[in-house]
């Protein structure tokens, strides 16, 4: 029987494994593209990075999309998708403004909490329909995309929230920086770190991956699939709600077009960042870098002198390239694993 014990499985040293993992990681690749974009644009126009506004915008502009992409990633990992986040963002942004109009003197942290809670509630509706109604998330959230937007339109009418409606302390958050880093971006980073930590180290986080990897197997494992999917949608909604409050602080005005189309940017950021659209793999770190890349490219292209039409095409090409690369790499990875198995059998 001793002849069946073949080789020590992990002959590679831990350092080799870590380095190898890093080299193959999608996060590093996308990050490199991001750095490249920033460097090339800065060479063309040094103000892109080195003016005080340039540095701030580089960090501040993606903060909204960052929040949405993190939430979206959690949902996509479970093999679902949430298309309603743009509408949730718009609705909570308007709700935030209304709170200040109706209750002047309300502490800012209460408003943040209320906006997040409102988003969570809207996410709960999505999650409940998906988890218990057994209807594909694509259909459900496409429906709520229109419903939430509709509620927003009928509530706001032609009304809009202006900077004057909101306290200056709140609006100052939009420009305030700590150690040259904008506060809103710090909020995004804190959320990113918390969610990233949870997904990697908590049982609940790993179960989200398991559910997305094979939903049927997850049921046979006895995992609480419904509650997990439900909570993923609640988290996604809550982050979209938080993004709504951030939107109000950053732009100062909220009209009925707020957040329009952002759900697809969020999906795009996640996909570019290596989150598999069929669930089960990808990280929020990747999605965050994807969000930065998406926003930064949009800002960089006019600087380099590329017309508006091509800007969209570039983003589209980026998404397709990301997916094609995924296919190529995963096919190669699979071949490598099969070959490794062959080797093991031979030895």
């Amino acid at each position: 029987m001793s002849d069946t014990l073949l080789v020590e499985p992990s002959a590679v040293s831990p350092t080799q494994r870590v380095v190898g993992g890093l080299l193959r990681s999608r996060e590093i690749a996308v990050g490199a593209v991001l750095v490249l974009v920033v460097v090339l644009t800065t060479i063309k126009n040094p103000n892109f990075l080195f003016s005080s506004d340039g540095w701030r915008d580089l960090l501040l502009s993606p903060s909204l999309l960052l929040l949405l992409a993190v939430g979206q990633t959690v949902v996509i990992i479970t093999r679902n998708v949430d298309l309603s986040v743009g509408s949730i963002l718009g609705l909570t942004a308007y709700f935030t403004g209304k709170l200040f109009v109706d209750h002047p003197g309300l502490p800012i942290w209460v408003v943040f909490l209320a906006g997040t809670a409102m988003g969570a509630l809207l996410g709960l509706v999505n999650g409940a329909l998906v988890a218990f109604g057994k209807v594909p998330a694509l259909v459900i959230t496409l429906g709520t995309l229109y419903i939430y937007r509709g509620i927003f339109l009928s509530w706001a009418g032609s009304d809009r929230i202006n900077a004057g409606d909101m306290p200056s302390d709140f609006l100052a958050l939009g420009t305030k920086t700590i150690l040259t880093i904008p506060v809103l971006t710090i909020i995004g980073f804190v959320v990113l770190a918390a969610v990233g930590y949870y997904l990697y180290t908590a049982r609940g986080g790993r179960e989200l991956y398991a559910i997305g990897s094979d939903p049927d197997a997850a049921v046979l494992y006895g995992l609480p699939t419904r509650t997990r999917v439900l909570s993923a949608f609640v988290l996604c909604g809550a982050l979209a709600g938080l993004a709504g409050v951030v939107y109000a602080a950053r732009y100062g005005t909220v009209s009925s077009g707020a957040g329009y189309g952002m759900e697809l940017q969020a999906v795009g950021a996640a996909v570019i960042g290596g989150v598999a659209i069929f669930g089960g793999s990808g990280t929020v770190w990747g999605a965050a870098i994807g969000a930065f890349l998406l926003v930064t490219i949009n800002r960089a292209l006019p600087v380099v002198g590329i017309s508006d039409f091509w800007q969209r095409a570039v983003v589209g090409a980026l998404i397709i390239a990301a997916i094609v690369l995924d296919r190529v790499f995963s096919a190669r990875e699979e071949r490598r694993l099969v070959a490794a198995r062959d080797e093991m059998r031979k030895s």
Partner: protein
Amino acid sequence: MTDSPALVLRDVAKSFGAVVALRSGSLEVEPGSIHALVGENGAGKSTLVKIVAGVHRRDAGTFQLHGTDVDFGSTAESKAAGVAVIYQEPTLFPDLSVTENIFMGRQPLGRGRRIDRAAMYAEAEQLFNRLGVAIDPRRPAKGLSIADQQIIEIAKAISLDASVLIMDEPTAALSGVEVERLFAVARSLRDEGRALVFISHRFDEVFELCDTVTVMRDGDYVSTDAIADTSVDRIVSRMVGREVAELFPKTTAEIGDVVLEVDGLSSLGTFHDVSFTVRSGEIVGLAGLVGAGRSEIARAVFGVDTYDTGSVRMSGKSVAAHKPRAAIRAGIAFVPEDRRKQGLVTDASVARNVAAVIRRGLTHAGLLTNRDENRAAGPWAGRLEVKTSALDMTAATMSGGNQQKVVLAKWLATEPRLLIIDEPTRGIDVGTKAEVHRLLSDLAGQGLAILMISSELPEVLGMADRVLVVCEGRITAELSRDEATPERVMHAATANVTHTGELHQEATA
């Protein structure tokens, strides 16, 4: 309490809509015993297992665990009560590491409820050592062979430390050595006082491992005997309710012209310089160990996978590489090994499945109606005696044997000249096995050329006119029906294999 059996099921019934899956299932397993559960496909074994596992809820009957009445509404509840189940089909998360697959939902936690990955990997490595396999605990489950996946399932079930362990055909994909390892572990679990239920179609394994055997037929309990007091013949006759017919009724067919000609086929890392022919009316058996590259050769011939060098010709005309559609047009039909994944749209109706590959010829003005599909499927399903109440029934609800027939019907509807069939009777019960064999024999009699891959030596020797033995991607022997003896095939199959392995021999006859 201590005297009560670990698991008691009495007169348990379960129906899915109008289909009665289990009429009156009974099973009583003592602690410290390995109990075999045998029966034809569709006898209700898997349904019984799923009731114990909490996947299904029973409609009626008694269900006790260690003397207490239980009623599981979910797999989580059954797990918590100490029941572990190895399902027939592996259920793994492809994107996650094999270790995470084993410990999902109950990972060891360190400080601050963080998952303790180091402890988890160490424990996984211990499990693999106990099972005597070398699998990197950090690799993803993606890309594992079915045998390796089965090993992961077993590791998972063992690590649950369950008092009742149910194994639904755990050995179907394992090689001889791996089966031995599994049995050693099963025996040590038995000696620790756990109750094990072992479901298998291989009677030699049942007699080697188990102490008690319960037979089921058509959703009913038939009998329970001590292994020492019974025999294969007695069990088989109880399973089928009649005397078993000849298991391998191969009739001699007139062997005609060369249909398939494979010349110098090579694919890096999988097979090398493979050349052979198949004539009309001839059944050629591809024998060898699991993982020798037989399925890969078949897939390359049919064009599912590509190959590096060599050529495939049908009746003298070359068939384009890597194009299944061209292969179908050239008259090749391919029934793959993994029915559920590759051969069958399990959510679709029987008729739709059968009609799937000939859809083109069925459409009227580009439209395909259910009626057309039923019309085309009817004769084939009837001929193969597919047991289904209606052609509209979805394939997922059928037993393995009937699913195999649906896959066969689907391909026969294309009127092929060559049928490639991979493990035609894997996971199929004795009665249906004979039917499948008779069917293959009939088809050969009608002039069809058949290339049959099988890991069951008696099947190869009984059915094939000619046996090709594959070892590590090369054809190491070509034996005529008269030359082919178990010893010769074995010798060729292990010609240059360094570690021991053996074909699964079945004691059914």
